[in-house]
C-alpha cells in the first residue's frame, strides 16, 4: 500500500496519469452540465409554490455541494502534506483553493438571486448563509496565506494548517439548518431516506451535481499539472517532455 501511495505522490507519475484522465473528465463534465442545465431550464415543470425561480436550484445546489466537498478534499490533502511532506498534496491545496472560492462565490450569488423572488430579500444573516460566507473567507484566507510566504515549504505548511482548522466549518454548514432556526430550508436531497424533491426534478439535478464534481476535478487537474511543470522545470523528464513536442 505504501509503495502505491508513494508512486502516486510522484509528480511525474501523476502528470502522466492525469493526462490520460483529463479528456474523459472534460467530456463527462461538459456533457452532464449541458444536458442537465437544458433539461432543468426548459423541460422540467415549475415548482408548485416558487414557479420558475426554482430552476436556479440546478446550479445553486451543485455549486454549494462541490464547494463543501472540495474543501474537505483540500483539507485532507493539507493533512497528507503536513504528515508525509508530499509535494503533490501541497500543490493540491494551493490549486484547489481558488476553484473552491469561485464555487462558493457562485453558491452565494445564485442563492442571493434566488432569495429575492422567493424569500423577499437578497441576504439575511442566518446560520446557513453566514457559515457559507465564512467558507468563502476561509478559501480566500488560504490563498492569501499561501501568497504571503516567499518560502514555498512554509507557505504550504501554513495554508495546510488553516485548511485543517477551517474544516470544522463544513459540518456546521451542513447541519446549520437543523441546529438553529434559519430562513434557509433544510436539505431536499436525502442520502438515507426519500428526497423531498420530486423525482422528475431530481434527475437533472443529479446530472448537474455530477457535472460540477467532474468540472472541479477537471479544472483542479489542469491547475495541478501546470504547478507540476513549473516546480519540476529543472528536471530531466520535464525537459524531455518539452523538447519532444
Amino acid at each position, binding site marked *: 500500500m505504501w509503495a502505491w501511495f508513494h508512486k502516486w505522490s510522484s509528480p511525474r507519475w501523476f502528470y502522466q496519469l492525469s493526462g490520460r484522465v483529463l479528456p474523459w473528465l472534460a467530456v463527462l463534465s461538459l456533457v452532464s*452540465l449541458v444536458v442537465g442545465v437544458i433539461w432543468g431550464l426548459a423541460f422540467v415543470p415549475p415548482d408548485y409554490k416558487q414557479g420558475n425561480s426554482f430552476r436556479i436550484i440546478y446550479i445553486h445546489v451543485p455549486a454549494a455541494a462541490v464547494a463543501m466537498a472540495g474543501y474537505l478534499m483540500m483539507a485532507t490533502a493539507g493533512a497528507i502534506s503536513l504528515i508525509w511532506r508530499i509535494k503533490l498534496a501541497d500543490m493540491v491545496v494551493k490549486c484547489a483553493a481558488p476553484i473552491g472560492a469561485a464555487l462558493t*462565490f457562485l453558491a452565494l450569488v445564485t442563492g442571493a438571486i434566488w432569495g429575492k*423572488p422567493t424569500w423577499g430579500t437578497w441576504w439575511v444573516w442566518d446560520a446557513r448563509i453566514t457559515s457559507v460566507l465564512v467558507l468563502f473567507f476561509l478559501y480566500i484566507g488560504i490563498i492569501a496565506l499561501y501568497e504571503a510566504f516567499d518560502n514555498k515549504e512554509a507557505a504550504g505548511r501554513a495554508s495546510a494548517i488553516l485548511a485543517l482548522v477551517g474544516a470544522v466549518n463544513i459540518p456546521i454548514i451542513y447541519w446549520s439548518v437543523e441546529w438553529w432556526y434559519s430562513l434557509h430550508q433544510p436539505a431536499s436531497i436525502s442520502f438515507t431516506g426519500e428526497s423531498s424533491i420530486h423525482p422528475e426534478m431530481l434527475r437533472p439535478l443529479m446530472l448537474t451535481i455530477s457535472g460540477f464534481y467532474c468540472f472541479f476535478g477537471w*479544472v483542479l487537474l489542469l491547475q495541478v499539472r*501546470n504547478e507540476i511543470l513549473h516546480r519540476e522545470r529543472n528536471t530531466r523528464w520535464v525537459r524531455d517532455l518539452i*523538447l519532444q513536442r
Partner: protein
Amino acid sequence: MFFESFAALLAMDGHGPYVWSAYAITLATLIVLVVQPLAAKRRQLRELRGFLRRTEEQ
C-alpha cells in the same frame, strides 16, 4: 419543452431576469475557471521551451 414558446422560456413568468442572470454569472465563472489554466499552460510551455533552447545552446 415545458414552455410554449421561446419567448415564454426567456420570460419564465416574470422570473426570467433572476434565473437567466444566475445562469449567466455561473457560465462566465466556469469559463474563466477553465480558460485561465489553459492559457497559463500555453504561456508556461512557451517560456519553458525558450528557456531550454537557450540552455541547450550554451
